[in-house]
């Protein structure tokens, strides 16, 4: 293997695949990045066996070949390289990679490329294309509700439901839920119902360029995201996502229309006193608007927010983080907060946008 590449491209490909590596994998070869070059292209692959990221860049190839290079060295080294052309070479069938830059060289022992396990992906069953801008927005609107508790893996993923050209993403950590609908450019052959790991979607957002479209391909147990130069393939989470439709409330006792900005600013200030543990704020609907308040041993705060309130008044305890997560993901001017009771779920949806909604379950007042 022998090729040359400039510093910027070298850092870019490594950065794109780096996160898929499992640094403490019991399989040493998985702690490395697979380098493959040929036909004027350098292709890097990293995988933790759940997800794999493949990124390609054009380079000058002098001699095609492949090698797995330990990620912790090559990634840190790439950051420290001077800005000049870089040449990478392995001699014969050896596992030593030599990186030349100017008059200097860096040598690092790698693993044989034939030991590197590649994620076997069966033929795709259905594909659609979405602009990266739209995909980023869709993912951002649900990803915050994904659970990070691995004791129930199904909730660490995002449900993707497709019927015809209608697609829905749903995420819930069982305390709140977020749902975003969007329209596909091609109809699906049947009903599709899969759960995509939250980690994969985070990676997709990170790796995706600004302008290009993203091609999404689904197969039985895998999902694949292809951008211009990067392919992310991931296993789907097995199991059934609980039926979310029945937990989205439909009848409301009180509907509040309020400025997203004002509510977010107030909630953000109140969060300061809400404490680390439960971060609860008292949310009160009144005739003239909303009052948000927190009383703690360190002090108290009261925020009056102008709003249109229709219906019964309630005093509700919300986790302020859940509220802020929803508000931060809304770009519209106003949001509708629809209440069903003191302890029952509240529904939040941007005013004039039916494609996105969030459900937050309040906390119960403590026994004291």
């Amino acid at each position, binding site marked *: 293997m022998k090729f040359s590449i400039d510093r910027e491209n070298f850092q870019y490909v490594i950065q794109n695949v780096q996160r898929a590596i499992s640094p403490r994998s019991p399989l040493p070869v998985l702690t490395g990045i697979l380098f493959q070059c040929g036909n004027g292209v350098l292709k890097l692959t990293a995988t933790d066996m759940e997800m794999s990221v493949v990124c390609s860049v054009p380079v000058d190839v002098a001699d095609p070949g492949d090698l797995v290079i330990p990620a912790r060295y090559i990634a840190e080294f790439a950051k420290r390289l001077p800005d000049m052309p870089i040449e990478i070479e392995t001699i014969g069938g050896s596992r030593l990679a030599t990186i030349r830059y100017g008059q200097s060289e860096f040598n690092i022992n790698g693993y044989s490329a034939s030991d590197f396990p590649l994620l076997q992906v069966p033929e795709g069953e259905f594909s659609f294309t979405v602009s990266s801008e739209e995909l980023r927005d869709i993912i951002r609107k649900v990803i915050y509700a994904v*659970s990070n508790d691995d004791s129930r893996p199904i909730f660490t993923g995002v449900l993707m439901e497709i019927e015809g050209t209608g697609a829905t993403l749903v995420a819930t950590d*069982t305390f709140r839920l977020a749902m975003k609908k969007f329209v596909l450019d091609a109809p699906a052959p049947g009903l599709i119902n899969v759960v995509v790991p939250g980690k994969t979607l985070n990676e997709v957002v990170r790796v995706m360029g600004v302008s290009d479209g993203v091609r999404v391909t689904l197969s039985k147990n895998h999902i694949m995201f292809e951008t211009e130069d990067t392919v992310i393939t991931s296993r789907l989470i097995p199991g059934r996502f609980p039926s979310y439709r029945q*937990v989205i409330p439909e009848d409301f006792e009180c509907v509040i229309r309020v400025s997203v900005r004002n509510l977010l600013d107030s909630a953000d200030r109140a969060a300061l006193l809400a404490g680390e543990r439960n971060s609860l704020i008292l949310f009160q609907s009144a005739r003239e608007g909303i009052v948000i308040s927190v009383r703690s041993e360190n002090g108290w705060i009261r925020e009056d927010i102008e709003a249109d309130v229709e219906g019964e008044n309630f005093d509700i305890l919300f986790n302020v983080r859940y509220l802020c997560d929803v508000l931060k993901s809304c770009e519209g001017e106003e949001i509708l907060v629809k209440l069903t009771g003191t302890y029952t779920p509240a529904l939040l949806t941007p005013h004039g946008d039916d494609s996105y909604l969030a459900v937050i379950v309040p906390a119960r007042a403590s026994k004291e």
Partner: protein
Amino acid sequence: MERTILLADMNSFFASVHQALDPALRNRPVIVGGSQEKRHGIVLAASYEAKARGVKTGMPVWEARRACPEGIFVPPRHHLYVHFSTRILNIMNDFTPLVEPFSIDEAFMDLTGCLHLFGGPVAAARLLKDRIRREVGVLCSIGIGPNKLLAKMAAEMQKPDGLTVLGAEEVPARLWPLPVRDLFGIGPRYEHHLRYFNIRTIGDLAGFPVEILKRRFGVMGEVIWWSANGVDHSPVNPHSLDTARSVGHQITLPRDFYRRDEIAVVILELSDLVARRARQGGYTGRTVTLVLKDANFNWLGRSRTLRRHTDLAEDLYEAGVLILDRHWTGYPVRMVGLSLSGLTRNAAPQGDIFGRAEKLQRVARACDRIRTRFGEKTIKRGSSLTRAGVLYE
């Protein structure tokens, strides 16, 4: 603001409780510890009459018997001491709600705000001593100071039945000449380490450059230096016992368990028991700890913090089994322990979107009512009927 802190330290508490209950024991050398028939155990407490003859706390019973042959040996009765301790705390609570139980026989009071009710600290202390003596029947040593540290140091100065006031301005004269080991917070380890700096008295420590102590002992270096200078800002916290507690249970298995499924059944049974106890106390907790011991008494303890406070057996079980699956390597298990910590009485429970927690909560309450009325073993899970069930047989 200048504070007035009082520490009441019960003298020879366990022995005094027995003397209070049985007039025949008064003014006699009472020694609490071990068991009377079997000649073993250590001395947990000794009355001043016994101490006068050289009996010390922690001494083996046989040695105490030799030092004081006419001693009256009493086996410990812990629930009595708890009961007496509660009675004393109740009296202290009549003075101020700012009472912090420090151990079973010591408690701090912050008198700052209520001094005018009693005509000053010494009058308040006399009244307290008098009431504890008359109503409970034990003597105590009281220390008064501008903070908890000096109150504690003052109480140590006169035993038994003492009353000592130690002001901040008296620190150089009365505290500094004492050996550094007498300073509250200095144990044998610190004493040993401080010897290398030639620090032998509290005064040596107070005059030592604090930077060097910080470099050697970290934050604690600064804390002990401030202590030696009589400075302590820690508040009297009436809730100090509410937070640090945990609920747990452990069981030694009738035989070694080899199978994951069998151990899981034990974890489920322990979860039920621990969750029930938590609910009885009105507690919810966030951290689940599983302890496993093998046949050679090697043990493994691992914790997992949950996303929300719980008092549900199902949540404890889920966490317990997760720990088992992650950390148990397949060795035979002889003992299993499970505990719930990070307890609070006033968590506002976060609602569950699928209503799972609420549903389980209702089941748990129903089971609680059945168990309270008809006994703990009247209702049990199916898995307790398998061979692996040990707790609800």
